[in-house]
């Protein structure tokens, strides 16, 4: 190939998903954006641009956005979403990292079986699996009974994570448990992929230079798996912010998240412009920190290159 740029095959391989994203992500998003600044007229929207008596009118209604900043229900729901997403991500990392670490260091023959076990839950419907927790954590459920027997409820109650002794359902506890349970594989898989590629001789080199296994872990393993940690954290955090099903099934009155608010605006209030505004703010809330993070990383890399 002498022509600069991509071949026809490469263009289509890149172009097809790009076209898909434009058609089914960017376009719907622009529609949502349009609705969020539109005025409702009973069941239809007023046109944004109108032409009357030789005057071009552009009408953008920002009151929904203003309302989001004024009614503290929205701020609370956004913050709750970010909080529970962050807590879920932290727990997934805490449980997933050691899991992925030992999986990557298990005997080679054992690794496919372990990997299979991580992915096995995907074979059952997500909805069923979350629903099953209702039975397990509800009164008389055997997980609830086991927690009672271990007096874990006392601790959870003291921390304000459950609503009463033996009352696990519809609490922050059940919500986070459900989200961690659901999203754990999304943390484990990128971490495993990252850790299994790590050269074990780097750890030996660290031991050789006087690092105890604990120090070697923090100084060598963790920094080298940063890419896996970031990938896993994003795969868990981003969907958790907008999560609707799990809070609906396992959450309670004290765990109002933004997904639920969105649902209510759409289906209970039938206020599509308001619902669209809520959705747009949610996307910005996730995208802006992500973009900043990406830029910081690109800058750090560029700096390194310049230094060299």
């Amino acid at each position, binding site marked *: 190939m002498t022509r600069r740029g991509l071949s026809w095959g490469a263009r289509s391989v890149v172009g097809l998903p790009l076209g898909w994203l434009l058609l089914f992500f960017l376009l719907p998003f622009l529609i949502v954006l349009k609705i969020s600044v539109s005025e409702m007229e009973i069941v239809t929207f007023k046109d944004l641009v109108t032409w009357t008596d030789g005057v071009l009118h552009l009408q953008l209604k920002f009151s929904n956005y203003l309302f989001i900043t004024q009614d503290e229900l929205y701020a609370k729901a956004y913050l709750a979403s970010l909080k529970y997403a962050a807590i879920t991500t932290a727990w997934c990392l805490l449980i997933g990292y050691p899991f992925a670490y030992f999986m990557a260091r298990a005997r080679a023959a054992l690794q496919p079986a372990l990997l299979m076990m991580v992915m096995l839950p995907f074979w059952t419907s997500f909805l069923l699996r979350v629903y099953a927790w209702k039975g397990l954590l509800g009164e008389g459920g055997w997980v609830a009974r086991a927690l009672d027997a271990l007096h874990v409820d006392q601790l959870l109650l003291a921390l304000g994570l459950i609503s009463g002794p033996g009352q696990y359902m519809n609490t922050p506890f059940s919500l986070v448990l459900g989200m961690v349970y659901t999203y754990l594989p999304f943390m484990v898989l990128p971490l495993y992929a990252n850790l299994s590629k790590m050269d074990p001789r780097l750890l030996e080199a660290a031991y050789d*230079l*006087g690092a105890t296994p604990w120090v070697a872990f923090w100084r060598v393993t963790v920094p080298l798996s940063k890419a896996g940690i970031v990938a896993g954290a994003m795969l868990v955090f981003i969907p958790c912010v907008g999560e609707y099903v799990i809070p609906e099934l396992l959450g309670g009155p004290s765990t109002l998240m933004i997904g639920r608010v969105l649902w209510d605006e759409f289906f209970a209030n039938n206020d599509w412009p308001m619902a669209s505004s809520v959705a747009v703010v949610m996307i910005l809330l996730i995208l802006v920190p992500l973009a900043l993070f990406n830029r910081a990383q690109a800058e750090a890399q560029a700096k390194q290159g310049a230094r060299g």
Partner: protein
Amino acid sequence: MAAVIQEGGEAGQPAFLHIAQLVQEFGAADGHAFRAVDQISLDIAQGEIFALLGPSGCGKTTLLRMLGGFDQPTSGEISLGGRSMLGLAPYERPINMMFQSYALFPHLSVWENIAFGLQREGLPKAQVAARVEAMLKLVQLGKFAQRKPHQLSGGQQQRVALARSLAKQPQLLLLDEPLGALDKKLREETQIELVNIIEQVGVTCVMVTHDQEEAMAMATRIGIMRDGRIQQVGTPREIYESPRSRFVADFIGNVNLMDGTLAVDEPDHVEIQCADVRHFVGHGITGHEGMAVSVALRPEKIRISRRPPPTDDPELAPAPLNQVKGTVKNMVYLGSDTVYHLALPSGALLQVSQSNTERHPDDALTWDDEAYAWWTPSAHVVLTQ
């Protein structure tokens, strides 16, 4: 150079690095025990550069890993400076290793890589910095202190690895295939540089290599290993010129090995009858007439010419001993030398290597030429094992 202590050590003076009856057994549990290292005893003096040389799978890397503390021996003893190393973890040993293909930390700069070991000792920052600077100067990498390993060439990475393993001033330095990742030209330059640095620091050194040139160029002594055992220990010259077994003779350099029987056994000379030639060896050996022996003859110890050997040279054995006539079957021109493959009457090939001292010799041998080859009574090594 430190006094060379032979295998087993000299009585009353314990060696600096003492390895005794070391065994590493794998798979003992399932009944198919395999000894990667089998009863190895070695004594290495302070300041020596000792090379373990052998084919892959001979146990040399396992032995090195036991010295570093990465593998625990099944039985035996390792002591360094009179202190037993058994049961000590790698991070508790005053031993540092330069790993094969270096194992530099990819997320740390050159400076941080070298400082890693010093920081683990909890030294004050200023002291760490001074030591790192000294190391950078030693390996001439001052300009590259802030680079990451992947921004360096292979030779530079090798020097970072060396600086990192020397930074803690170890009592023993282990080198695992130190030049294996470099190309040939760079390897030859680096060999000399590496030895200079090691001697400047004065550290005792054990290296593992499968490259005999590397071992010969760098080591003060070489141990040839095979199947978990040490076949022979000696200076490079001893190993090359006086191999004690067919394996060592064959493993190091090129050699013509000929089987024969001891025909004349006198105190001051012996004669060995082989298929194509009767050898005259200018010294006595322990053996008896009729005994089966092998003769090892290095290609460069043989002279080759179109004309028969001179008959009046007192250095040579009386004709027709130590000479053959054959046909040049193959010629390999290597620049500095040419290797001839001379087909002998029995069909065996004799390798002869001649230095190309002239640019355009008048009567150079070529394919299918008839030629004579001869050698002196001191050229061969007689092998009884």
